[in-house]
């Protein structure tokens, strides 16, 4: 029971920090609250017994990606924006409507088909490193290798972009 309470608390933190990311004018504050959001997501992963993913979330997202973000924000010295830009109202209304539509659509889908959501199994075995590794190197070997290729391409592309005198 206390664990489900923890889930709702951490979920609330995740939502709050996500809203903060979007609304804050200061890019550094956005980045920090995004890190907070990742941390709360990591806690949720722990509650869902996905230990490796939880640690990887902190390792990759919080530890590497967001540091890169902060690095760029500081490099470009993007302190704070002056104001939220003046979007025209039509655009704003349309985007809100679209998001609402998306939200309601999935909600309806969820209410409509209960068979989408299986009952949880008590014994969960897939959270550790061994099942994940086994799946990665047998069933998903090709995607795994392609992902490594993707990383290589990204590496080369980044070096090229950064080196080029523009």
């Amino acid at each position, binding site marked *: 029971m206390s664990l489900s309470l923890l889930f709702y608390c951490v979920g609330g933190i995740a939502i709050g920090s996500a809203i903060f990311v979007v609304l804050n004018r200061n890019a*550094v504050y956005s980045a920090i609250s995004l890190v907070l959001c990742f941390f709360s997501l990591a806690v949720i992963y722990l509650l869902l017994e996905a230990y490796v993913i939880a640690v990887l979330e902190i390792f990759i997202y919080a530890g590497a990606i967001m*540091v890169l973000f902060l*690095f760029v924000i*500081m490099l470009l010295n993007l302190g704070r924006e002056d104001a939220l830009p003046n979007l025209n109202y039509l655009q704003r209304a349309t985007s809100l409507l679209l998001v609402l539509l998306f939200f309601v659509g999935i909600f309806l889908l969820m209410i409509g088909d209960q068979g989408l959501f299986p009952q949880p199994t008590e014994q969960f075995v897939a959270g550790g490193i061994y099942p994940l590794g086994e799946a990665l190197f047998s069933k998903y070997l090709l995607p795994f290798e392609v992902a490594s290729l993707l990383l290589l391409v990204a590496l080369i592309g980044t070096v090229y972009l950064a080196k080029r005198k523009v």
Partner: protein
Amino acid sequence: MDLLGFTIIVVKVLVVFAATMLGVLVMIYAERRVSAFMQDRVGPNRVGFKGVLQPIADGIKFLMKEDLVPERVDKPIFILAPAILLIPALMTFAVIPFGSSINLFGREIALQVADVNVGILYVLALTSISVYGIVLAGWSSNNKYSLLGGLRSSAQLISYELAMGLAVVSIILLAGSLRLNDIITDQQGSFLSWNIFRQPLAFLIFLIAVYAETNRLPFDLSEAEQELVGGYHTEYSSMKFAMFFMAEYANMITAAALTVTLFFGGWDVPLLDEGSLGLFGALLSVLSFILKVAFFLFLFIWVRWTFPRFRYDQLMRLGWKVMLPLALFNIFLTGGYLTIKALG
């Protein structure tokens, strides 16, 4: 979870926390004394017997000083940054086993706060978090020297994390597990089964990376006082500055403990079966762990007074062009060895 189990966990957390903090105090004293001896000086010897109360005197001084927050700093982050740096440093110790298990109240108690099955990944993840404290402290100070220090050290931490992680990978390959306890069990036996003898190259890379990760000389570019005044903590004073200090020493202690766990058999006493000796064996294992950690902490200070600081481009070249390929080569070697062993 029953009450006794819960109490045991709380006690373990408190013990580890207190031990780390005590270790920080001892390190502050040892750093000054050992540095003095290496320079043919005496060092602090006034407060208490031979100056052992010096860290407490320092602490009181820090508490009494004015807590200055400069006007143009980014206040929330400025106040938050030291805590962000200190907390991961203290949290890392949670997964490091500091002794074999003991039998108390009719149950087996492992001398480790949490036996996480992805222990080593947890450690690496928390190490990568500590970048934030430095970067944010540098940025929020609104001081170009602090910012430069912060940027430099974040680049340095990211670069050396890679080499460190790859060096650890070869250990993981040997042990076949991410649990730190399994890694220790894998090294039990004689001296020669310690990973430093099985993986000397990985040890070297890991050790160098650890020095870079803890921002110690010869990699203390983030606080190179000749160029950057004081680096990221230039604008800090009083207890906030003390927190940076404590974080640095706590980081050193965890790094030393990690080195011992990964390469020196952890709490393992060579040629001895701790389990057969009961409580005495457990105490012996804790003692051996503390002694090994103490040696590495001494090495930190020793290296500090021996090697000059790297230039920034040298640092990057070492990290990316030497350590990374070497670590990859080492993984290749280890993989080859394991394949041959599996085949024949």
